[in-house]
């Protein structure tokens, strides 16, 4: 495996396995999007520009030494938080949600930035803390996670908020959160569920969860999406209906076919076999991340790779679970496949940083 190409004056940091599998996934994504958008070339061209830019960005972000990310992690998170505040003030409102900052040429979904900045910052904060993490540091970390979760959640963007929250918890867990604390707090959370239900969930979110538990509750409201998605997936069968042959997507029965529900389009047109091929690519990427994390040069790199790859994994599983109807609809794109700007780019950024963490080696001290 080539990780470092050394030339005369400089080195290139690169992981061919991740690079090839991500590129393959992105290109497949373009084909899926072509079908999901009912052959709209404009959408596909726009998306391929993002993909191309994303791949370049990933490559560029692999080059700096992990110390660069470690040193500037506080700066990143402060910037990210400021962007969220800016969104609150200057953000563009779409469908009652203020999640986007308009830069003229590009509309940035600011929660996507914090999704990456938070794991890096936490890694840099926790990498030198003795095991197990002390109560003091645990609480500081948790306070930060909850604060950021609340910022994102109040946009409102529960989906990304959950991913940010989970990402923070992963890092804390991987960094060595004491088991005693885990079990105690888990018990407390279970006990406080009713309170959270009544005070933190918007009525439409409660409705989504209720509908999820009993779909007959609301035949044409929230569960319409799940029902149509299930029909699309189920009717794909073992081998699918064929490229661009999915009636659920082509006749607009499937909502959000280009974004959140693109998996249903893939399942309808390529069947269970296609789903297995696609998922094995994702699976390969995740396994590669474990390998890279285990071989990373220090604790900071390990935590960062672990945290970011788990952000990626949880985004994927929330999306998949939502589309097949095993978790409520929260609005979550499929990484590298769904149409999108910020959310798409965020994963190229994340993997750029993962590659940087994995490829830069340092001589052992002493």
């Amino acid at each position, binding site marked *: 495996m080539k990780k470092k190409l050394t030339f005369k004056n400089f080195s290139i940091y690169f992981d061919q396995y991740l690079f090839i599998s991500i590129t393959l996934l992105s290109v497949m994504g373009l084909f899926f999007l072509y079908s999901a958008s009912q052959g709209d070339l404009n959408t596909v061209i726009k998306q391929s520009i993002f993909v191309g830019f994303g791949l370049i960005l990933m490559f560029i972000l692999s080059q700096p030494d992990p110390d660069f990310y470690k040193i500037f992690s506080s700066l990143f998170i402060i910037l990210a938080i400021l962007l969220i505040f800016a969104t609150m003030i200057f953000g563009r409102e779409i469908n009652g949600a203020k999640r986007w900052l308009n830069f003229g040429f590009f509309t940035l979904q600011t929660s996507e930035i914090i999704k990456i900045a938070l794991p890096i910052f936490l890694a840099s904060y926790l990498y030198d803390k003795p095991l197990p993490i002390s109560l003091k540091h645990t609480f500081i970390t948790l306070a930060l996670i909850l604060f950021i979760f609340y910022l994102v959640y109040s946009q409102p963007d529960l989906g990304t908020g959950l991913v940010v929250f989970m990402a923070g918890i992963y890092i804390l867990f991987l960094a060595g959160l004491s088991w005693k604390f885990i079990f105690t707090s888990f018990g407390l959370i279970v006990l406080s569920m009713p309170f959270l239900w009544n005070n933190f969930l918007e009525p439409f979110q409660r409705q989504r969860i209720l509908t999820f538990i009993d779909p007959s509750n609301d035949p044409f409201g929230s569960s319409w999406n799940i029902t149509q998605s299930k029909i699309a997936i189920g009717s794909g069968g073992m081998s699918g209906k064929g490229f661009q042959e999915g009636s659920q997507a082509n006749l607009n029965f499937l909502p959000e076919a280009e974004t959140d529900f693109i998996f249903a389009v893939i399942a309808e047109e390529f069947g269970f076999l296609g789903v297995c091929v696609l998922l094995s690519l994702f699976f390969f990427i995740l396994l590669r991340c474990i390998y890279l994390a285990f071989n990373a040069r220090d*604790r900071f790199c390990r935590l960062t790779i672990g945290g970011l790859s788990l952000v990626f994994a949880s985004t994927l599983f929330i999306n998949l679970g939502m589309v097949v109807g095993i978790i409520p609809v929260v609005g979550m794109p499929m990484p590298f496949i769904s149409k999108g700007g910020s959310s798409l780019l965020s994963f190229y950024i994340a993997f750029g940083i993962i590659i940087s963490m994995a490829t830069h080696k340092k001589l052992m001290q002493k």
Partner: protein
Amino acid sequence: MIDLNERYAEKKSFFNRLVVVYVFFGFVFSFFLYQTYSLQVSEYKDYETAAIANKTKEVLVQPVRGIIYDRSGKIIVNNVPTYDLIVKASLIKNIDAFLSDLSPIIELDSDELDYVRENFDLKALYNRELIVKKNLSREEIAKFEVRGYKFPNAFIDVRYSRYNNYPELFSHAVGYVGGVSNDELVSILNSQALPQIETIFKYSNGFQIGKTGLESTYDQILRGKFGKKIFEVDARGRFVEEREFIKPKNGENLFTTLDIEAQQVAYDQMDNRRGAVVAIEIDSGSIVSYVSTPSFSTNAISNGISSRAFNALIQDKDKPFFDRASQGRYSPASTIKPAIALFGIENNIIDWDFSMEDPGYFILPEDQRVYRGWRKGGHGNVNLNKAMIVSSNTFFFSLAYKSDINKLIEHLSNFGFGTKVCADCFNPDKALLPTPEWKMNNLNFGWFKGDTVNLGVGQGYLSATPLQLAYYSSVLANKGTSKELSFIHEKQDIKNLNIQLNNTDDLDWKRLHQSMIGVIESPIGTAKRLQELKTYTVAAKSGTVELVSTDTKEDYKIIRENEGNRDHAIIIAFGPMPNPKYAVSVVIENGESGGSVAGPVAIAVLNSLIGK
């Protein structure tokens, strides 16, 4: 800084924890894969069906209703394609604004405007189309085509109108059609194994079903079967492409036994007087003429009528909607006498040689009550033949007096009284053949001998419809054998209804026919005025139904000042003799004389039938 041991412990802990997370994700992933597998493989069939159901929509295609012919193959009722201006009522917010926008392009008369305004709300509620104007002219179509863009919810299309070529002749026999109610449509769709809830509001509009007459009796045959167009639609229900077209099965044509010419003659002869004419082909039991007057136009009723015009018909005191032929109850009066005569012969109460004095009245021995004949002073010495010809009440009072009431009732019911005599008439009435039980149950009185006496001259509680009288006439003509009446032969299991008479031979029947011929041909016959109206021999029996009982001609003159008190005129006839082919009955309400008022109508109808 942490030392090397700690570094190793940290690495181990990290790795263990990463594995814990991945194992957790592994579970989630397995669950996800299981779910996908069950959707795509285990439950594939269900979801495939659901996906197909999602994208296909069925629209019903109407069959064209069958044509109704007369017995010589002339069309009575047809479907006439017309170009109609149609609106989607549910999409129009203000119908008055719509109509005023429309007025410069297509003019509507006041009846049409009324019709649109009256029906708009209901059609909008049920999402049905509303026909604003029927039968547009070429100019109107051209005008609308030019400016139609102003009316996105209106369009011109071909619709079939049910058109009766003789709208007033057959109003009761053939009946009319009308819009279908939701319940009716549901049951029709069920019977054709079609889905209803989804298609009920989407079927092509203007479907009509038979409401009365043959249109109703044979509706199932006439209506045909719906076809289907299967479309592919998108999520908003918009048309994508046509997938399949199952052609509708048009309704079968109906070949009736009705005779347009005889019908026309009967209708003209009735001249809008209240009454009915029914004529029958004796051998087959076919109804060839069936008229109830006054009448109304079925075309107006079938194809949209304003409520003003409809109310005028409903409130008409002559009740044009009332089907007198099968629902009007009239005392048979003297027309019952041939049946009573047969009873007397069958039961050996009298024979053709028996005679008695007719003083003009009959005194009931039990209570000395007097039953009067129609002629003061009576008819002198009468035998059965004379009693028939002059219609002697005394003779038949006396004969009935000697009769067993239960036997007599059974005998009369064999001639169709109090029974259903028609296989396919619309809602026929059985009228009333009174029995002692009936009287006790309904009037709380026992049967008096006087009731039996009254039965002998067809008065009292006994009543019959013109249809039953025509049947009775044909049974007499055919010497006791008959077929259940019907309008269509090949469609019915026609019952043979033979009367078992053991003591009555062919000679008796011939002598009975002879006496009925005498009713017209004899110089003393009650219908002798009919002699000159024909060129062949006809057997008949006239009757005059007393509505108000009077003792003298002077009294009658007083009560006849009120037209509604005048006697009904009634006649049964059959001919040509001696081998009769047609039997007929005529009732004219308040017509006063069976022989000279109802008689000419009967003869004219027979002329029209026999003249061929």
